[in-house]
């Protein structure tokens, strides 16, 4: 126990902390500018100087560690003098432009000067001028205001790991600049904006549009973008979102955000939002009233059910909608339309992968706490760049590296290249061999533990020699041995799996091998999730084989529970997956489809074929916030309320349930409410008056969520396995699909013809599905679709950045500007699937893995030619 005295008050401390922290814990405020709880100690601004008995000079409270018996004074005449002096120095150059500075009102310097500062200046010289700073579309710099506390630089380097900004020049001329001196070339996380104590780095999105004290409400909610589920504070004035900020102390993101979360909110107020229902008349979508639209949907769905039966109907749920929306959606499909044909785009990877892993290890195998990653001593990453797909999770991996942990990656991962990764980069189609090799080597080193016979039976026979890896994967024995050594010697490893595993050839077999690595290493699995409520949608039963609570539909016992709860008899047969629905639409057996908050015409591979298939369907209902590609094909389009306009819950990838709150008022109905209205029209009793009623029902009917309430979720206790009953026992045989690798072509490449390139999907940091198109800030950062090619490809076709190329595959072609990216494989071309009419999925065919039912995107070959 350490006892110290601050301002005559005795403070007892368990462990040594800084004087600043000790004072804070006792409620004594010491002014600071450079110190920030998320950043390393710096001791630069000198404002926190305190008197310590027996030390002759003033000490900086932010760097001085307490010692037993220390007597400290924080408010004396001498300290007041010093503070006044420091502030006077800062004001030599800091302009007094508070009347038009957006920071005024929440400016730390302003507050300090009001409290401690001099009322007048003794300096007659002019303040410095620092021209520029307005070049960037998002981040506005005003460097005349900069007090060089370096918080932003320390944030950028020490937390975000981008190192995009630095202090340049020296003395009175020093200020902060990105490398170019103008535009930022960075990850646009905006965490520099969060920590700037003055108005030096600010967001252009809300520039000069409000004063902090005019914000009418602050609502804590969850980010709409990815499966990490960061907590956001949405600040609103006049029902317009002015700003989105993080809060320190939140469980997942703790004061940090990524570009999408911080700058991607403008879609909510977009003028392109749907305002009224639309009904297709003579091939044109025309505005209609809610009554017309709802009664038409009820009538047509009823007719189709009567004429063609329930199996002719399907539903596509949304990983962007809340648990409540998805619960009501699947209930509607099962109870009213009486079909299990319910699925979502989670089928493109996440759902199958999770089902596969849980079948081996039991339910909850992927429910691991994200910040725990930074405490791992090794992180094994395969199948995607976590820093782009789930950026805040990516930061934990970077933190792990900074803390001395090892980063082991299969394939090159751009966002981690500065973090000393140990990389094994297998040739195309040889990932399976490499994984077999890793499993073999770990088996030899560690032996099979014997606790999971079923898994062991599957991997016992795997024995891949190092020579084979060298030959097939193009990886040297030395590199492989080093990788295995680091992996096998780690004691708290984590495994991060991206969607590319499920979307590659032999996806289920690769998942088996990764599961075996997980088993041999006793690791934790993190399954990257591209959508905010991908997990929640599955847990709510929006899958052809699942009931709410992630209960297997084919178990009569589970079905019975819901039959009792919903007072109906449920269809027994497993429904169609989203791809099976597309096939059924193609062959004409699917007559009606209800699509909530999803855009399958763009978000599914071979999108042109999806579009053609949907055109075959008699009746399509699309419920969305924008008129999407899918909406244009619909017979009825229903406008929904969006994120931040409604209440509910999201379940993130760690299976933490979090509260989504309404921040903005808008006329309209939540997704669940629209469906409930239609249900009522079809004679079902869906009586909910608010989202919480839906959740109460979920907690009542699903044993997983037993006794759970909004109140409890708000306390932050809703972490898996909650207080309910997760399913543990392994239920089914482990099955895998491992197609033979395609033969080498004449050009020496596997699976593609000579002269062609592998077409690969880019998953950009700044975009997410088609939602980010409506967020102007994100579009400004990454404005148009590009074809990323390697330097070698560029040279061989004498292309330079910006040249327009035609990328063509068997099923279509796109014209795009080219971008040269050194990190792209010389036999590949990367395309994103985010921009209208320029989606990679319009060029990609797929085959379905029969086990995980995810689309394999390998084997798409593309040709590129210069257009101009």
């Amino acid at each position, binding site marked *: 126990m350490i006892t110290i005295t601050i301002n005559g008050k005795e403070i007892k401390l368990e462990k040594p902390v800084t004087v600043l922290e000790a004072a804070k814990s006792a409620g004594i405020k010491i002014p600071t500018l450079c110190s920030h709880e998320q950043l390393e100690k710096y001791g630069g601004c000198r404002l926190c100087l305190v008197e310590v008995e027996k030390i002759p000079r003033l000490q900086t409270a932010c760097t001085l560690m307490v010692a037993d018996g220390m007597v400290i004074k924080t408010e004396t005449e001498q300290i007041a003098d010093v503070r006044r002096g420091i502030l006077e120095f800062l004001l030599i150059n800091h302009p007094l432009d508070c009347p038009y500075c957006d920071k005024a009102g929440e400016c730390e310097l302003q507050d300090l000067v009001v409290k401690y500062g001099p009322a007048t200046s003794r300096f007659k010289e002019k303040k410095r001028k620092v021209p520029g700073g307005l070049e960037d579309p998002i981040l506005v710099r005003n460097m005349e205001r900069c007090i060089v506390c370096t918080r932003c630089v320390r944030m950028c*380097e020490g937390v975000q790991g981008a*190192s*995009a*900004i*630095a*202090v*340049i*020049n*020296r003395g009175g001329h*020093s200020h902060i*600049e*990105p*490398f*170019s001196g103008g535009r930022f070339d960075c990850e646009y996380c905006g965490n520099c904006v969060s920590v700037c104590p003055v108005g030096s780095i600010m967001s252009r999105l809300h520039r000069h549009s409000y004063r902090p004290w005019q914000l009418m409400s602050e609502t804590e909610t969850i980010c709409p973008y990815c499966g990490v589920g960061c907590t956001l504070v949405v600040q609103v004035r006049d029902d317009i979102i002015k700003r989105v900020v993080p809060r320190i102390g939140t469980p997942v993101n703790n004061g940090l955000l990524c570009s999408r979360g911080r700058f991607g909110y403008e879609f909510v107020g977009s003028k392109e939002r749907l305002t009224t229902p639309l009904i297709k008349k003579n091939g044109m979508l025309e505005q209609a009233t809610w009554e017309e639209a709802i009664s038409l949907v009820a009538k047509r769905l009823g007719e189709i059910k009567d004429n063609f039966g329930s199996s002719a109907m399907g539903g596509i749920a949304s990983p962007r909608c809340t648990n409540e929306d998805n619960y009501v959606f699947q209930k509607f499909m099962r109870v009213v339309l009486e079909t299990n044909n319910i699925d979502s785009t989670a089928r493109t990877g996440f759902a199958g992968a999770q089902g596969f892993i849980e079948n081996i290890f039991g339910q909850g195998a992927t429910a691991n706490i994200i910040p725990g990653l930074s405490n791992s001593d090794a992180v094994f990453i395969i199948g995607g760049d976590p820093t782009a797909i789930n950026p805040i999770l990516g930061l934990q991996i970077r933190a792990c590296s900074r803390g001395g942990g090892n980063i082991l990656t299969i394939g090159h991962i751009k966002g981690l290249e*500065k973090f000393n990764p140990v990389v094994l980069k297998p040739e195309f189609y040889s990932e399976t061999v490499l994984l077999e090799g890793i499993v073999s080597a770990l088996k030899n080193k560690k032996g099979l533990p014997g606790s999971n016979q079923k898994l062991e039976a599957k991997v016992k026979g795997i024995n891949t020699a190092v020579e084979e890896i060298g030959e097939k994967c193009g990886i040297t024995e030395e590199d492989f041995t080093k990788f295995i050594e680091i992996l096998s010697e780690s004691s708290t490893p984590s495994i991060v799996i991206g969607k590319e595993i499920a979307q590659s050839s032999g996806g289920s077999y690769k998942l088996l091998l990764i599961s075996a690595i997980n088993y041999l290493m006793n690791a934790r699995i993190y399954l990257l999730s591209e959508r905010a409520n991908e997990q929640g949608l599955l847990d709510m039963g929006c899958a052809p084989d699942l009931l709410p609570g992630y209960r297997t539909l084919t178990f009569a016992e589970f079905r019975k529970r819901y039959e009792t709860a919903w007072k109906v008899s449920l269809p027994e047969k497993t429904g169609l997956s989203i791809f099976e629905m597309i096939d059924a639409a193609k062959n004409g057996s699917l007559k009606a489809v209800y699509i909530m908050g999803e855009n399958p015409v763009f978000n599914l591979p071979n999108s042109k074929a999806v579009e053609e298939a949907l055109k075959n369907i008699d009746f399509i209902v699309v419920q969305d916030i924008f008129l999407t590609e899918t909406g244009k094909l619909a017979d009825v389009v229903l406008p929904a309320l969006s994120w931040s306009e409604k209440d509910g819950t999201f379940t993130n990838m760690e299976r933490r349930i979090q509260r989504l709150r309404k921040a903005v008022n808008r006329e309209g109905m939540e997704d669940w409410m629209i469906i409930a209205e239609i249900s009522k029209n079809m004679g079902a009793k869906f009586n909910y008056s608010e989202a919480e009623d839906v959740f109460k029902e979920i907690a009542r009917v699903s044993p997983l969520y037993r006794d759970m309430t909004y109140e409890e979720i708000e306390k932050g206790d809703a972490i898996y396995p909650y207080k309910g009953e997760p399913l543990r026992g392994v239920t089914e045989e482990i099955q895998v699909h491992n197609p033979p690798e395609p033969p080498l072509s004449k050009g020496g490449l596997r699976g593609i013809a000579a002269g062609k390139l592998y077409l690969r999907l880019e998953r950009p940091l700044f975009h997410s599905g088609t939602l980010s198109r409506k967020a102007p800030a994100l579009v400004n950062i990454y404005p148009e679709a590009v074809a990323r090619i390697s330097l070698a490809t560029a040279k061989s076709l004498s292309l330079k950045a910006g040249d327009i190329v035609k990328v063509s595959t068997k099923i279509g072609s796109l014209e795009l500007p080219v971008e040269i990216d050194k990190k792209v494989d010389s036999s590949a071309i990367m395309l994103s699937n985010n921009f209208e009419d320029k989606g990679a999925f319009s060029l990609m065919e797929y085959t379905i893995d029969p086990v995980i039912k995810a689309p394999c995107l390998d084997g798409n070959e593309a040709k590129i030619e210069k257009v101009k």
Partner: protein
Amino acid sequence: MFSEAAIKELEEIRQKYPSARAALLPAIYIAQKEFGWLSQDAYEAVANALGVPKAIARGVGTFYAMYKHKPLGRNIVQLCTNVSCMILGAERLVDFLKNKYGLEPGGTTPDGRFSLVIMECIGACGTAPAMLVNDDFYENLTEEYIEEILGKYK
């Protein structure tokens, strides 16, 4: 892009320091020798060669006044105007350079032959006024002597 010789030199320097970042100062100096001055491209080359973020490399370089951040002439005249030199007429020499060669402090002659940098004390107070031309040291300067010296540099 660095020449092969420069890359070799950079590698040797890198070995002498515990971290890449510690080797920044000599590495930037090599870039300056290589490219004449420190353009954005030069910083980028240094950053790539050492594996240091480019913003950080530039941040470090701009701290130091003796790195060149704009293109200068073929020969750099560094003249001291501190106390001793000033008393012994350095300011007249500045005027002389301006009148005779059109060389302003911080400026470059139109033919790119000379650039003039006014520098702080070079420790030659006993033999003031003094100057450096490139790496060569000259003292006890007069107008005639300067003319003679500069004639040697083309």
